[in-house]
């Protein structure tokens, strides 16, 4: 029993809001406010209000510690829009109540009027609680997912993935099932059945007060349908994509973690192949200028006229086999060079020394043995232009060489 005026309580809450907010945060964080924590908090604000806190039943004692009283906790959660997500089992609990009450209403549709009225009223209450639970849960899950995505607490990616997985498995997927219109057992579908039933009964029931209750229930369900649909859209368009992004990023992050960890990047794992660029460009930077320069060098070249000599000269050809045959017939020859001179003169009186030297090359044939005149006699060979002085060479057939 609270003796104080409601207005006094609200004024007290307004005056000490900051302190109460700190206590609320402690409660959310630890599920309890220890005696020590309460003392520290009160000391920090230098306000001796512990008596009022218990008198107004804002805090209730739990053994030696304290806890926020539930109506105040709900109030604070609501005004801060900071809800602790409900487990699917807790939400399912409303679903069970809704199913049971609906079944009872259908079975006892012709029973006592008063119990039917109370059941319809109770069903409405459960539907409202269920809807609030879903709305609050979606909000809190969205907030948690956004915080996780923003990583305000700078947690490591592994912890982040762990939390994301936890949220998906324990909260988001079950909530999705609860709201899934395609899932025959979803609470959403059960509500559609209730809506359909009440829509019929609001016209088709003998008692007017019952018809009115069904009418109210039907309108409540129309609103609930809209609200749940909104939540379902938030879930599909915001929450699931957000989690999906965390999931995609986590696949990359796992890869980076694996690559960087244990020196993996330096051993064992080959990076992507990339091209080895060379300094030699496939196209020289000056290819155009160089090509142009190359062709231009021929552009202004003076014309070169080659005038062929009109007078034909008859080239003398050294017929080696013929000369060698003659030489062989005359072996041994006492003076080789003179023999050369006389031989060539038989062909042409006016011989050149070039031709003469060609004939003398017979000297180097393997078939002959050459000896120099021991007295050191010199001979001379001359034509119109010059005179050669040469040693006197004797040439004879080499005995041991077969011809």
């Amino acid at each position, binding site marked *: 029993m609270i003796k104080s005026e409601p207005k006094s309580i609200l004024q007290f809450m307004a005056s000490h809001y900051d302190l109460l907010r700190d206590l609320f945060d402690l409660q959310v964080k630890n599920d309890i406010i220890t005696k020590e924590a309460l003392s520290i908090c009160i000391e920090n604000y230098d306000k001796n209000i512990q008596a009022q806190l218990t008198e107004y039943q804002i805090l209730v004692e739990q053994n030696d510690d304290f806890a926020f009283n539930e109506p105040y906790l709900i109030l604070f959660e609501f005004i801060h829009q900071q809800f602790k997500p409900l487990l699917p089992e807790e939400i399912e609990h409303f679903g069970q109540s809704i199913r049971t009450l609906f079944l009872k209403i259908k079975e006892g549709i012709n029973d006592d009027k008063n119990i039917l009225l109370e059941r319809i009223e109770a069903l409405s209450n459960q539907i409202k609680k269920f809807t609030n639970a879903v709305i609050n849960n979606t909000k809190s899950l969205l907030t948690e997912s956004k915080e996780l995505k923003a990583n305000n607490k700078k947690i490591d990616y592994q912890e982040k993935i762990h939390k994301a997985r936890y949220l998906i498995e324990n909260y988001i997927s079950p909530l999705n099932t609860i709201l899934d219109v395609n899932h025959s057992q979803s609470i959403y579908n059960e509500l559609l059945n209730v809506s359909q039933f009440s829509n019929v009964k609001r016209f088709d029931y003998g008692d007017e007060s019952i018809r009115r209750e069904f009418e109210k229930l039907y309108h409540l369900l129309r609103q609930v349908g809209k609200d749940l649909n909104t939540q379902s859209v938030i879930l599909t368009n915001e929450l699931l994509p957000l989690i999906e992004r965390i999931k995609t990023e986590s696949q*990359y992050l796992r890869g980076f973690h694996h690559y960087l960890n244990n020196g993996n990047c330096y051993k064992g794992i080959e*990076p992507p192949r*990339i091209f080895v660029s060379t300094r030699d460009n*496939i196209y020289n930077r000056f290819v155009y200028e160089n090509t142009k320069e190359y062709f231009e060098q021929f552009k202004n070249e003076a014309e070169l006229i080659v005038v062929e000599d009109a007078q034909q000269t008859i080239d003398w050809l050294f017929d080696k086999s013929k000369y060698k045959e003659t030489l062989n017939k005359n072996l041994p020859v006492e003076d080789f060079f003179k023999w050369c001179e006389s031989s060539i003169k038989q062909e042409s009186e006016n011989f050149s020394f070039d031709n003469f030297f060609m004939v003398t090359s017979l000297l180097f044939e393997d078939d002959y043995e050459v000896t120099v005149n021991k007295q050191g006699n010199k001979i001379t060979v001359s034509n119109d232009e010059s005179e050669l002085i040469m040693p006197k060479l004797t040439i004879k057939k080499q005995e041991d060489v077969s011809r």
Partner: protein
Amino acid sequence: MYPDKHKEIVTSLMEGKFITVEDFLFETIKKNEDFYINFFETSFGFEIIGNHDFYYLVSSDTNENTSRDISIFFSILCYELDKDGKNFLEELNYSEFHIDEILEFFKNSSWLDVIKANKQLNTDDSLKRHIGTMVKRNIAVKQSNDRYSFTKAHKLFIDFAKDLVKDDKNESIA
């Protein structure tokens, strides 16, 4: 007849550059993809690799050190961006980074041992040079006022890391 800008395409690719979808040359290669596959294979024995984001050349030789440095660079940068609460996939695609911001990420990274062991990443100057190398290969683009953005070519290096654990389903979160 060669395709338009043939010389520019060949020169860029032979310099080890990525031609990305942001570049108008990309469309020319895409339209003449068979020609370029054949051209590089027949002329030089090189392979041109392409997807809907970029084209690049590979040969039997690979610049393993540079590729490793780039892979480590992106792995660390993404890791730090994520730790900073940023969506690194979007950041790499659409954001510009001041050089000081990048240097700061590396200075405060939890992968200091990896960074210290890497001569291309372990000082401010070497990191700047490394980013310069990425600019030359058209993986990064220098914007005004010491700011850099990344081209779609960055995906080669981050997808490579992602695919390292692609088949490992044990740690999958969904």
